[in-house]
């Protein structure tokens, strides 16, 4: 057991716990009994809070442990996270403004609320809501994987129930203050998280290379490792086969980022369009952090770091690379701060994700199908309960099965959330795609994405299915037709599935329009997409 680290970790953890409970009184509302308040923090966060909240939401503990672990294991391909976060903001800069405005004008809380209003279809809304919940659940579970990697490095590496006890305690506390304070809790804690993360990364990125002999030595060590490894695809540069995968994975991930319900929650909680525009300009600062952090994977190679063997599964846990690097290279008090940074980094997104999933459940399933006459107060109550269920579901998930499945499911989650792009993002601009065509496109995109993922093996881990998201073009089989037979070039599965989805949606739209089937009623107006915070006759927030 690493006592110094543990004490510092616990102190910082207690600090954020107090903050989490105090958050309920922060910029207090008359009551939290409304989803605008509990689920969206009163829709009034300014630029700074939004920056910390959205940053805390998107750059998760799992990112912090998994991205460097990818570079440690495979080299350049893991660096896709950088182009991904570079293009994400310019890509969504304009659509999020429309999403914010229409949601503010109509009181929407979730992306599925928007789809419901835009197409007058509760079925399409249900599909979007369920896709969102299913994609978010493994994401929450992954935060636990990140937290566990840190706990394991501090000495909590038991098997069975006792081994998971610290994790369980951390999550009970998280569940309680999220229940009480709603979105205000992660918004306040995100400040602490980011300050700690920035501190740790800056120190790590200046101190470690100088200690280990500079970037030159670090990259030489990485090249040597990849040259000696039997795997053909690794290296400090991309090869002819994985460049397309690198670019499409970056683009696909960027397209998916703001379709995730928790990202939309962060966006809708902001006060106005100007706040969002500023954030889309300033958020790439996190990309710098992420890129530097990713390079720590190579630093770990140069430092000779080895992953811890997980006593529960008996296999090395690649996600412990970064905690172990800190353990080996930093004095123990600073390692404690670094562990707390990653651990708290797990709590912020886990809280926001559970709130987003709870909002979806409440608005688009409970209110739509179970209790149609639910009052705003009932909705808030239901969402609070749902957030508990979601979090404990995630804990049970991690405790009862191999964490590797959470990682696989997260991979699938990225592919499936992309399939809501036509119904959510394109619908912000036009209703030309027919609602039934959107459903048809979704079905095809989902099914084909699943089939393709199932077919991908991973020779490194000796698995026949769900071995990754890189599909060799050779395997692309469209009803028996193989357009790229024999090609070893790889592409991101989600991208292929999205193209299929869009093609089907367009073709089906032509056909269905010919048949003159109703396309539902649009309850949004053109001007809704441009409302801003200071407009007169703006819909009041949190009215009962």
């Amino acid at each position, binding site marked *: 057991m690493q006592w110094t680290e543990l004490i510092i970790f616990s102190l910082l953890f207690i600090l954020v716990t107090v903050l989490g409970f105090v958050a309920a009184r922060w910029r207090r509302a008359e009551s939290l009994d409304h989803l605008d308040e509990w689920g969206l923090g009163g829709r009034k966060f300014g630029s700074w809070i939004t920056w910390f909240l959205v940053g805390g939401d998107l750059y998760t503990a799992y990112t912090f442990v998994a991205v460097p672990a990818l570079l440690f294991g495979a080299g350049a391909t893991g660096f896709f996270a950088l182009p991904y976060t570079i293009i994400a903001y310019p890509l969504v800069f304009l659509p999020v403004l429309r999403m914010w405005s229409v949601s503010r004008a109509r009181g929407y809380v979730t992306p599925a609320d928007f789809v419901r209003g835009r197409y007058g279809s509760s079925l399409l809304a249900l599909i979007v809501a369920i896709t969102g919940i299913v994609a978010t659940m493994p994401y929450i579970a992954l935060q636990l994987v990140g937290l566990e990697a840190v706990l394991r490095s501090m000495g909590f590496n038991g098997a069975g129930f006792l081994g998971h006890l610290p994790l369980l305690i951390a999550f009970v506390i998280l569940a309680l203050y999220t229940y009480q304070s709603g979105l205000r809790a992660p918004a306040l804690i995100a400040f602490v998280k980011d300050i700690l993360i920035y501190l740790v990364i800056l120190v790590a990125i200046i101190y470690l290379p100088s200690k280990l002999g500079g*970037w030159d030595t670090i990259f030489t060590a990485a090249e040597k490792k990849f040259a000696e490894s039997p795997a053909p695809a690794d290296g400090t540069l991309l090869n002819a086969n994985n460049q397309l995968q690198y670019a499409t994975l970056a683009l696909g991930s960027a397209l998916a980022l703001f379709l995730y319900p928790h990202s939309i929650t962060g966006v809708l909680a902001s006060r106005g369009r100007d706040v969002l525009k500023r954030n889309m300009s300033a958020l790439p600062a996190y990309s710098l952090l992420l890129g530097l952090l990713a390079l720590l994977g190579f630093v770990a190679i140069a430092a000779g770091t080895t992953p811890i063997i997980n006593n529960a599964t008996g296999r090395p846990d690649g996600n412990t690379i970064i905690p172990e690097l800190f353990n080996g290279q930093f004095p123990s008090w600073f390692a404690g701060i670094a562990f707390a940074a990653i651990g708290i980094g797990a709590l912020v997104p886990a809280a926001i994700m559970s709130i987003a999933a709870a909002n979806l459940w409440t608005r688009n399933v409970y209110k739509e199908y179970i209790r149609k006459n639910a009052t705003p107060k009932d909705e808030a109550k239901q969402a609070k309960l749902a957030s508990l269920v979601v979090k404990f579901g995630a804990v049970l998930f991690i405790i009862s099965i191999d964490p590797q499945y959470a990682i696989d499911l997260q991979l699938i989650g990225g592919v499936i959330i992309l399939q809501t792009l036509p119904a959510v993002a394109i619908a912000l601009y036009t209703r030309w795609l027919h609602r039934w065509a959107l459903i048809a496109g979704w079905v095809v995109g989902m099914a084909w994405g699943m089939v393709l993922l199932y077919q991908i093996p991973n020779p490194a881990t000796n698995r026949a299915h769900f071995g990754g998201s890189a599909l060799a073009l050779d395997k692309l089989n469209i009803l028996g037709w193989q357009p790229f037979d024999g090609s070893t070039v790889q592409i991101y599965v989600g991208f292929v599935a999205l193209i299929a989805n869009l093609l089907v949606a367009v073709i089906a739209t032509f056909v269905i329009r010919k048949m003159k089937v109703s396309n539902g009623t649009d309850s949004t107006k053109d001007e809704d997409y*441009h409302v801003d915070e200071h407009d007169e006759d703006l819909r009041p927030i949190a009215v009962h």
Partner: protein
Amino acid sequence: MSSGKHGGRVTGLVFSPWNLLLLIPFIVLLTPLYNRESPELFGMPFFYWFQFAVIILGVLSTITVYRMTRKAPVSRVVAGDTEDVDKLDEGRAE
């Protein structure tokens, strides 16, 4: 969809040519441009430092778009609006 004012409010698509700057960062998707070792910077292969450089390029483009489209008549300007926008800490507003 029609552009223009309707009952005092903006409707339809409002598009500024400045928005085209948002396309610049997508250069980072063209891997053949930068997938090489040299020239190195601080011992870092070109592949890595080029992508770091695109972050700066990306921030410059988004900031320019933000600055240049700020005055666009996206919504009716209410008295005092512009002052509010310049306040750094909006946390206590409302």
